[in-house]
C-alpha cells in the first residue's frame, strides 16, 4: 500500500499551512502533546505497576483500573488531535521516517492490546494480585505480570520513538 499520496494530501491542506505559519502556537501544541502523554501513559503505568504488585499492593485492583479508564481516553484524544496537528506541519518528513512508523505501529498495538488482552487479563487477576476476593475464572499470576510488562514495554517504545522523530 502506498501511503505517500496521503501525506502529500496532508501537506497541501490548510491545516498544514496554518501549522507551519504559527511557530508559537506549534510549540504550545507540542506541550499539549507531552501533557496528554503524561495523562495517557501515566495512568497506564499506574495500572501496570499495580498489577505487578509494585505500587498500591493490597488496594483492590478493579478500583484502580476502573478509575484510570476515563483519563486514558481523555489523554488519547488529546494526543491524537495534537499529534495530527504536529504531523501536518512535517508531513513529507514523516512519510519517510522510520521512527514515525515504529511509533504508529506501537500506538496501534498499544491501543488494541489495552482494549483486548490487558483489559481481559486484568479483570481475571487472581486474589494474590487483585485483592478483590476469589474468582472462578482467575488466570495464573505470571500471565498478569507478563501482560503488565508487555504493556509497559509497548508504551515506552511509543514515547521513545516519538521523541526520536525530533532527532532524526
Amino acid at each position, binding site marked *: 500500500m502506498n501511503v505517500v499520496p496521503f501525506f502529500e494530501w496532508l501537506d497541501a491542506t490548510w491545516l498544514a499551512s496554518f501549522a507551519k505559519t504559527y511557530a508559537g502556537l506549534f510549540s504550545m501544541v507540542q*506541550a499539549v502533546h*507531552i501533557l496528554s502523554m*503524561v495523562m495517557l501513559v501515566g495512568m497506564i503505568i499506574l495500572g501496570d505497576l499495580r498489577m505487578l504488585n509494585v505500587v*498500591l499492593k493490597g488496594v483492590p485492583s478493579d478500583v484502580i483500573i476502573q*478509575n484510570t479508564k476515563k483519563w486514558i481516553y481523555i489523554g488519547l484524544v488529546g494526543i491524537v488531535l495534537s499529534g495530527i496537528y504536529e504531523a501536518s506541519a512535517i508531513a513529507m518528513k514523516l512519510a519517510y521516517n522510520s521512527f514515525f512508523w515504529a511509533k504508529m505501529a506501537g500506538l496501534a498495538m498499544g491501543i488494541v492490546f489495552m482494549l483486548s488482552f490487558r483489559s481481559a487479563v486484568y479483570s481475571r487477576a487472581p486474589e494474590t494480585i487483585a485483592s478483590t476476593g476469589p474468582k472462578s475464572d482467575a488466570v495464573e499470576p505470571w500471565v498478569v505480570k507478563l501482560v503488565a510488562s508487555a504493556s509497559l514495554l509497548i508504551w515506552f517504545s511509543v514515547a*521513545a520513538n516519538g521523541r526520536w522523530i525530533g532527532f532524526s
Partner: protein
Amino acid sequence: MLNELLFEFATWLDGFQASTNLHEALYAYGWVEATHVLTLTLFLGMLLVIDLRLLGVAFKELPASTLMERLDKPMMIGFVVMIISGILLYFAIPVRSTQSIWFRIKVVLLIAAGINALLIRNMTRSADLAWDNDPVPPKRIRVGAGLSLSLWALVVVCGRNMAYDWWDCHKEMPYFMYWAAGCVNELAAFE
C-alpha cells in the same frame, strides 16, 4: 550583578571538555533528553493521580492518604531521575540555558511548585486528615492540587520552548528582553 555571576559560572562549565562531548555526542545527548522527557510520565503521572484525588475528581473510593503515601516513592524516583538528567542537559549547554528566558521562568515555576508542594504536605499531615475518606476534599486542598497541576503544566511548556531560539541573546530584542534573559554582553553594548 547576578546575571554576571551566572554567566561566569556557565562559561566556566562550558570550558569542560565533558560538556562539549555530551552536547556533540551522537546518541548520548538524545538519550539524556529522552530520559528527561519520558520520566515525566512516571513523575507527573503519579503527581496527576494524587492531585486528581485531591481535586475530588478521580479515585474517590480510595482514602487520599493511601495514594499520597504509597505513590510518593515512585513519584520521587521519577523526580530524582528528572533532576539528574536535567542537570546533565544544563551541563551540556550551560551558557545558552543560563541566558534562556524560558529556563529562567521554568526555574521560578519550579520553586513555586516546590513551595506549593510543601504547603500541601503541611495541610495533609495524617493528624488532621478528617476528610481522608471524603470523595471531595476541602477547598484549600483542592486549590493546592489545582495550583500544583497548573504550575507543572507551565514547567513543561517552558521546558519545551527552551528548544526554540526566538528570544536567544543573538536576536534583535527590546532592552527588557535582554535584561530578563540576562544577556550580559548585549546589555553592555547599551551603555
